């Protein structure tokens, strides 16, 4: 039996699509109860890795374990208790109310029709995210940032052990970004494990507990091994000229001005 305090263990996974390799023999571990960011450039395989962790894609090679359980052998219902997933894009077609959207997060607990307890769980989730005042609004009328918060509330209503978030801050303005990331930190303190793909390394470095760096279809190494916040290493990850400035024992990246 492998260690179960690891929320996620990825062993030698490879994934290809239409004859093109996207992940090449990837190994990684993610600790339970931490906020872990997956960083790297566009096309490095970040989102694909996250989708494999969430069971939306299956790797052709290797094994993914979620709290020690082989991911490939979980059915949708078992999986929904373990991992929740926030997609990068989501477009609702029908103008459902916010409350109805959040309620769909409870599907794993519901046979056919939601019960009062499911409604209560949704209300609690909306309260936690701070969107209870939006509950009767149409989801389709909301701004991108508000929609993102609704989908986070939906994840909390689902109540999985691990939240997997693909670019959660993309549509958010500056203050909503910090609001969301502080909320994530709060949730981690309460025992959740969160894994998020991020474009912006600075937000990740400010808020994250751990980091997985990806380049060329592989996870290069985790942030724990970045003892002195190696500028040369970050340059290889982001493939270009950049400067680093120290920040609370870590660094922030500044793009190089030509």
């Amino acid at each position, binding site marked *: 039996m492998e260690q179960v305090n690891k929320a996620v263990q990825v062993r030698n996974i490879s994934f290809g699509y239409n004859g093109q390799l996207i992940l090449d023999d990837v190994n990684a571990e993610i600790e339970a109860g931490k906020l872990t960011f997956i960083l790297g450039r566009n096309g490095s395989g970040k989102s694909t890795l996250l989708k494999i962790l969430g*069971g939306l894609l299956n790797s052709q090679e290797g094994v993914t374990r979620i709290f020690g359980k082989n991911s490939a052998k979980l059915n949708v219902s078992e999986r*929904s208790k373990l991992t929740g997933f926030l997609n990068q894009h989501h477009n609702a077609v029908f103008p459902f109310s916010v409350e109805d959207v959040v309620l769909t*997060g409870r*599907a794993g607990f519901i046979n*056919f029709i939601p019960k009062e307890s499911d409604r209560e769980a949704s209300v609690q989730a909306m309260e936690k995210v701070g969107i209870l005042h939006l509950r009767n609004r149409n989801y389709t009328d909301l701004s991108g940032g508000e929609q993102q918060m609704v989908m986070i509330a*939906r994840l909390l209503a689902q109540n999985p052990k691990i939240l997997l978030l693909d670019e959660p801050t993309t549509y958010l303005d500056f203050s909503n970004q910090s609001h969301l990331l502080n909320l994530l930190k709060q949730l981690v303190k309460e025992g959740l494990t969160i894994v998020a793909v991020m474009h912006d390394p600075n937000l990740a470095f400010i808020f994250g507990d751990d980091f997985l760096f990806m380049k060329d279809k592989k996870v290069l190494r985790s942030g724990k091994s970045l003892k002195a916040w190696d500028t040369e290493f970050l340059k290889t990850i982001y493939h270009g000229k950049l400067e680093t400035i120290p920040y609370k024992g870590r660094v922030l990246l500044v793009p190089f001005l030509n």
Partner: protein
Amino acid sequence: MNNRNISILLYSLPIPVILVSLFIGPSQYATPGAILNMFFNIADNPGIVKSIVVDVRLPRVLLTFFVGGSLAISGCSIQGIFRNPLTDSYILGLSSGAAFGAALALAYAFLPVQLSAFIFGLAAVGLSYFMARKNRNVSIVSLILSGIIVSGIFTALLTMVQFFSDPFKLQSIVHWTMGNLHNASWGKLQSSIIPMSAGVAVLIIYRWRLNVLALGDDEARTVGINPGKDKIIILFAATLASSSAVAVAGIIGLYGLIVPHMVRMIIGPDNRQSIPLNFLFGGMFLLIIDNFSRTLSGFELPIGVFTMLLGAPFFIFLMKKTNIGWNR
């Protein structure tokens, strides 16, 4: 008025419409007065009046109600699973498949007309679905495209059958495709009510799942719903109900597209309410339209013509007037 009372009102609205419909018709014997007299046992010709109401109008009213309800509830479900407000079973090729099946049976009498219409309707939807399926995914665009292609194929085949038919058979084929309820009978009701009810029942049971599916496949899968399996069940139930309706009543064009939108304007998109209400309102509206078609002129216009002529302008009016949330 609170939500609960509004719901009760909406759900009970079809009852008076059904009752009133029994009083409406061209017969000079079964006038509203005569029917009332029958109930108080003071009618002049109780036998005729009773027979008109029980043997002619009641099966027609019930059949019309079930046909309208089945088309509407199927349209709403199909829009939900394909996340596409522009689709219904008609657009997936059901009607042209059914029309071809009916024409084939009318021309060559190898199968009962209803059964043949049902089989080919089902086949057309199945064909559209599997043609659109790629990598276990059914995209909205490819679905509409394959629906158009399948409709085109069956329409061409229908034209061929019509071309080779003699004038008498041709007339009955054309009449069938226009949609008609005037030869409703207890027999027709019996042969179609079981598949219609079965389809409708499954859709009502699965109504909340439609909310989950409407957010997208990934969004459904990650919260514990297998989208592929649920979609097949719902698509089959919707096709069962709507192809039985088309088989018995002919083509009632775009009805399954229009009613779900009207219901959404009234009660919102939450399928927990809108699915059952689609059945009730779909039945009720078709009954009202049929009442007009029975009384407005000396001869009966085919119901399919009427639904288009009345439904389309009404729909455009509602679309202009109400914010239904498709602006983005």
